[in-house]
């Protein structure tokens, strides 16, 4: 728990410093009282200062630890896979079209998240795809890609 806190603090500190340095590099055309660089620079410094405070809190042993609500480790694998699936879904829309891509996405997503039964994946996939196509595509007029494969 403490180590993740230190990492979070360092990320905050680094991000703040990065913002401040980037803002400093901006040119001030000198038209107004303060230029376009001033406010972002303040923000960067505020974030960096928060990072420094967090770093100190994570390194100094003290009361914070007692509160330590240790979270279970995240299921990074499942999360990364879902993200990859979403990207694949978004990319495939253009090629195989919304209806087919949705059937595949729903099936794959259910399998990934631990639902059981191939028949269910297929039924759920077709049901969701059909419902969305009718409700959003037909009734609400969302432009759902038909897919180049099908001449869309």
């Amino acid at each position, binding site marked *: 728990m403490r180590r993740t806190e230190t990492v979070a603090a360092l990320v905050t500190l680094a991000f703040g410093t990065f913002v401040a340095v980037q*803002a400093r590099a901006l040119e001030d055309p000198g038209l107004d*009282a303060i230029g376009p660089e001033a406010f972002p620079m303040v923000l960067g410094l505020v974030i960096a200062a928060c990072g420094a405070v967090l770093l100190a809190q994570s390194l100094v042993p003290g009361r914070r630890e007692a509160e330590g609500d240790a979270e279970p480790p995240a299921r990074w694998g499942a999360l990364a896979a879902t993200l990859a699936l979403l990207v694949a879904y978004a990319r495939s829309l253009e090629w195989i079209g*919304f209806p087919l891509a949705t059937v595949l996405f729903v099936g794959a997503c259910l399998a990934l998240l*631990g639902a059981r039964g191939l028949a269910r994946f297929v039924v759920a996939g077709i049901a969701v795809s059909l419902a969305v196509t009718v409700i959003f595509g037909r009734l609400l007029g969302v432009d759902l890609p038909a897919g180049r494969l099908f001449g869309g």
Partner: protein
Amino acid sequence: MDLFGAVADGILRSLTPAGLLAVVVGVAWGIVAGALPGITASIGMALVLPFTWGADPDVALMLLAGVYVGAEYGGSIPAILIRAPGEPSNAPASLDGYAMHVRGETGRALGFSLVPGTIASVIGAVAMVTLLVPLARLALAFGPPEFFALAVFGLSAVVGLSRRSLAKGIASAAFGLTLAMVGVDDLSGEDRFTFGIEGLVEGIQTVPVVIGMLALSEVFAEIDRAHEPQASISTKVRTALPTLIEYVRCLPATLLGTAIGIVVGVMPGAGATVASFLAYTESRRISKDGTRYGEGVPDAIAAPEAANNAVVPTSMVPLLAFGIPGSTSAAVMMGALIMHGVRPGPQLLTGQPEIVHALFGGLLTASVAMYLLGRLFIRPWIYIVNVPKVYMITSILVLVVVGILGLELGVFEVYMVLVAGVVGFLMQRYGYNVVAAVLGLVLGPLVEQNLRRALVMSRGSADIFVERPIALALLVLAAASIAYPLVVDRVKRRRSP
């Protein structure tokens, strides 16, 4: 236009076919979203936001108003049935509601949430319009220093609620403000933080980031928890509702809850959860059953459920009167207004009063729709809570993607939603304040431009914020809302060694 005219205009607008459809669909989706764990009112609103693209702004607002109203009731369904509130603001109702359900009085428990919620919602909508007129008049006297101070106050009120770490709360708000700086600076024409990426020149679009940070991040969090066993609810429950006399008996608690909700709703940062907890503890004092709170008494459900519904309309007041959203839901509403080319703020009431009337009418019609839908379909809503989580997650992911397609954004924005989702999830997991970041993004341009305009007025002197009493008062309030939790924390620690 006088108050009566405004009310009449609002109601007529919401009774057009398009308006009525928007309200009913909004409320139905709101009840579903509210009942689903993790999907809060603001997330439910963010998910349907893209589909308002192409609709008239007043129809869009009525849809979102419907979602917001419905969600506050929907959240009490799992609170009562499985003691797991669908929204944080339904937590108090889970205490006595669940106790009542265990006794076999499920229908009564739901009724004591639905009817007081409806009453509060109607009174709240009237309070919204009544408060709006004088406040908007006040806001017309505001200059850049006041708007800057007000935006800072709105932001710090949310930061002050960061339970886990104040430093992380401040960093989150500053992060959101930084995101708002990306793109061409309006005043000087300079490119900021674009790093040569074409998609960033126009700035970071609010709607994709709001959907990503609020909604997608929560779906990721649900995936993270998806392996946890899900309580299944028996749908064989008694749905007998309370009698009219019983409703009348808890009218004092209902009205107290409503009053608390109205007051808390107007204040930025506080919101429905604070209101419902306050209503629970305060109604205990006036209730005849005060000593039996927790055992399943009507007042203990009616008061907090009235409070969270009363917050819905009044939390729109800071947004409509000043253009400063005081809550996440108001921030989503602001996103919708901007998407439809409507600039919220004091000019709205005089320039485009029909927008405000439509929102009012939508809220009022939504209250009635909530009552009817809640009353007619008690069992179907219970089935929804039983839908396995993986199906819910998958459907919402499809909805997010369809939403992005609906907005007709480019590929770049699709990735923006995904990135925002990942960032939001990481922030949430490591104790940062996603709400503060979203609010920062929405308020960013307001904060910076008003700061710069104020400094132009004063020729660069920061004294202008001290010399103008309203600006000074707001900045003091902002500092206090951050310092107050710190002080309370310290006092508590000293008392309990």
